[in-house]
């Protein structure tokens, strides 16, 4: 199972911070999301991203996790040399994160 099977997500940016919010489709999968999608796994998944610090916020009421990736946008959209300076495509790259239900 991969993340795309149980969740959808949206990516935003603030300065050189990338923010990725992940939402389970079904409330009963929230525990699985909380257990499997940890800050450590996000950092490991984005091997080429210069993440300075990462924070995870839990929002059980709407079945969401909010990840804040500091430093991910290399100076932010206004200075970045990146093709995707906003990092809008980052969240989608998480969709094949393996989710282990056991």
């Amino acid at each position: 199972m991969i993340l795309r099977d149980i969740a959808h997500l949206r990516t935003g940016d603030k300065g050189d911070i990338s923010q990725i919010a992940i939402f389970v489709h079904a409330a009963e999968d929230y525990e699985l999301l909380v257990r499997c999608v940890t800050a450590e796994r996000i950092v490991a998944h984005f091997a080429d991203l210069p993440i300075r610090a990462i924070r995870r916020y839990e929002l059980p009421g709407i079945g969401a996790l909010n990840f804040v990736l500091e430093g991910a946008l290399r100076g932010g959209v206004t200075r970045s040399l990146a093709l995707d300076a906003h990092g809008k495509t980052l969240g989608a790259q998480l969709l094949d994160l393996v989710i282990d239900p056991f």
Partner: protein
Amino acid sequence: MTGRTIRIGAGAGFSGDRIEPALELVEHGALDYLAFECLAERTIALAQAARRVDPAVGFDPLLESRMRAVLPAARSRGVKIVTNMGAANPLGAARLVTRIARALGLHGVRIAAVLGDDVLDIVRSDRFPLVDRAGTSRDIEPGMVSANAYLGAEGIVAALAGQADVVITGRVGDPALFLGPLIHGFGWAMDDWDRLGRGTVVGHLLECAGQVTGGYFADPGVKDVPGLARLGFPFADVREDGTAVLGKVAGSGGCLSVATCKEQLLYEILDPAAYLQADVVADFRTVAFEQLGADRVAVRGGTGRARPDTLKVSIGYEDGFVGEGQISYAGPGAVARGRLALAIVEERLRLTGVPVTDLRTELIGVDSIDRTGRQAGTEPREVRARVAGRAPTRAAAERIGAEVEALYTNGPFGGGGAVAAVRDVLAVASTLIDRTRVSPSVHYEVA
């Protein structure tokens, strides 16, 4: 729904946004207010740079098109307009809208400009610690082109109380464009933190317009969205207690669901318990959504705490130039030829002594946006080599694209579609200013 509601629509979610959905809302949305959010982080800096060349501009380039499109219908239906399209020149924008209204025969339209966000003189004259990096405003003072405080709803509320039909601001917090009409319409106290927090939730959901009605959402086969080419923009029916029902015009494209609302609720939010705005610190943790019907979603919950004593200030400053070049390769061996092309450009820039810093080389289709470091299973049939670098002068930055174009005859075989570009970098840094040093004021024009 019982009790009085205020219906407020979103007419734009960014500077270049489509205009038809705004007109559709005015004509068929039975709105009380229409808000256009058109200022990204850097837009004011760009506008200020434009104004230095031509003092008559400095506001949103689409201001005239938008106003010509919606003003007649807004006037006849009594829809009031609130927008931050004033950018670096709200007064100039208000005067232009006045001329447009007269040209359209809409006499008597009252247009307000909210001033006071421009704090460039204050920031220039002092040393403000930067909040997103080390150093102070003094470090970037030589290239500084703009400094604008994120105002709250206060000026908008005053303008509406002053009978304005159109309110034009420079920098205000995006949700304030929506919160202002709610405070004015319901008479909310400026220290009623929970109501201001809930109004901020509504404003935040609406401020990106089509992003809550199915834009930035579709993933075919997983999350399908009908009619994106006719995407409709949202409105909210807000009650006095700050709860709301979101909807969109019947027959418009897109979809409005609990899922689209959840995604937009957290869009660009860092700590959901502390969404810092000039008017309130909003807490999104108790927000809940309920699907009431097709494209109708109820929004409940959300709280607020006392507003901060400081206002965020965005400083725009010149930060050198970026040069870029791209060229494509195809067929078997495309990746290897693309890599060779990148290596040649890197070496050429070194050999010819171009003062480039932060050079970035990558293959579009292989490793330009993917940040997982993983290899694709099969070699792509085509790649596009991209080189981007920072340089202190325009001439040096131009050398980057020139070396990419030179690959046509000097590089690997089969390179096609080369392009070269240079842009001057207007970077943004942030600081905080004591709110007592910033005083919004309202100026009126009458068509």
